[in-house]
């Protein structure tokens, strides 16, 4: 932050990725979104969170819920981890290189989260949208906690986040999650197996132990934050029916019957 350094470099104006190169002058630039002092009650909109470990079926359910809500006339916006404009790609790079400590990585995820919260979620809620979050702060808290970062530290870090209207936890056994992950990709990824934690060189055991640890953190979080636990072992249609029932009650939708469009039938099993 030393003002006497790096002036030339930062002064060189290049369009950022995805930008058109237009620099808003400071006089016309909008003030930052006021996360500080936001009153959640004045936002309108509905924030629905779907949590669960890798292979719990989260993304599948989000796709189906989006279609169902849109068919009911609700505008939907989704969010997920590492999707911010600010640092989403940087985190991908850090994960690939594995050169960073758990705390730094945790803080980069926090930056990613708050960037999306301020630039996407809050504006969407202000416009009365339904925001479906494919993971939220609870995953980030659980991952940090199993790596030995204090729970109170993590809760303090995410203290400025909005409390969701509904939080679903798709609870699955690690062994089931393992099966499902192998259907999606031919090999287990470094992070899903928790290999940074040096639990075991046997990657099956490493995966099971790591996901088991995350699951126990979730059991604690579920009690603390009153999650709605959903049995993730049930088939996709059954889990989806349960989610629709709860969301319909919250949004006062009378009809909860739903058949996916042909485009989504491949995940309806």
């Amino acid at each position, binding site marked *: 932050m030393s003002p006497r350094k790096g002036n030339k470099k930062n002064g060189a104006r290049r369009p950022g990725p995805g930008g058109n190169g237009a620099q808003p002058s400071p006089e016309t630039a909008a003030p930052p979104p006021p996360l500080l002092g936001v009153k959640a009650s004045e936002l309108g909109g509905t924030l629905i969170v779907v949590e669960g470990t890798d292979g719990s079926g989260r993304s599948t359910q989000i796709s189906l819920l989006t279609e169902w809500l849109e068919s009911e006339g609700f505008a939907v916006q989704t969010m997920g981890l590492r999707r911010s404009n600010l640092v989403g790609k940087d985190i991908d790079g850090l994960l690939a290189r594995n050169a960073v400590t758990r705390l730094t990585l945790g803080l980069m995820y926090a930056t990613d989260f708050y960037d999306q919260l301020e630039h996407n979620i809050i504006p969407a809620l202000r416009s009365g949208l339904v925001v479906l979050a494919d993971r939220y702060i609870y995953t980030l808290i659980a991952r940090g906690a199993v790596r030995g970062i204090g729970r109170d530290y993590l809760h303090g870090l995410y203290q400025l986040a909005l*409390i969701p209207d509904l939080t679903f936890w798709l609870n699955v056994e690690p062994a089931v999650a393992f099966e499902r992950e192998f259907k999606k990709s031919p090999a287990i990824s470094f992070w899903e197996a928790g290999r940074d934690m040096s639990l075991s060189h046997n990657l099956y055991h490493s995966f099971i132990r790591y996901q088991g640890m995350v699951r126990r953190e979730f059991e604690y979080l579920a009690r603390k934050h009153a999650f709605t636990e959903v049995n993730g072992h049930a088939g996709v249609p059954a889990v989806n029916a349960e989610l629709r029932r709860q969301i319909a009650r919250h949004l006062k939708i009378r009809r909860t019957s739903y058949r996916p469009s042909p485009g989504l039938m491949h995940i309806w099993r």
Partner: protein
Amino acid sequence: MDETALLEAPEMEQPVAEAARARRVPRREYPGALIVVEGIDGSGKSTQLYLLKRWLEIGGYRIHFTEWNSSPLVKSATRRGKQRKLLTPVTFSLLHAADFADRCERQILPLLHGGSLVLADRYIYTAFARDGARGCPERWLRNLYRFAPVPDVTFYFRAPREIAVNRILSGRPRLKYYEAGMDLNLAFDRAESFRLFQGLIMEQYDRMVVTDNFVQMDGTVPVNTLQKQMREIVRKRVDLKRFLPAS
């Protein structure tokens, strides 16, 4: 939406002042020592730390120097955020915390555990002052940096705002957007915004003199006189013998 926007964290209920008081005594779980300089731009802190460093180097002490500067880790994100003005007070703060965490865990802590005397040009108090001036809640900030070791001595260089600001403004015509605090909408003119922003930062620093046990230094005193005072305090507060090579 729920009425309360804050997550409950009962573990953090104790007031900040109390937490700060609890931090005052450095936890010596390492053989090294940490000396920090803080103050607004133009307060003379970097010059003084440089002179202290030279004195210790010439004396043959085992020292390392670190500064509050972006590491390659977050450089691209910081640059992108600044150029496109994506940064809010919260994300600005978090990016710098991520950067500092990297420096802390990979540089400062290993050096302290290895028994070095570490000199830091700006430390977590820079974040408390600057992000506090931007409106980040103090309790949130204090928690964010809880992982940082407490310095053995923190020098706070204080010069009247006008003197400090003029030292900067007379030398450099172009101030950067965030550096000038333009995101706070204090003034349309960058120099004026910078002036006001530095004043807000100074208010934050002044409050930390007591809570964080700062050693206040008068930045208007001649350089060599001030350096003499600084060396005297370091000699008194830090057992320098420990940092001489075992011969």
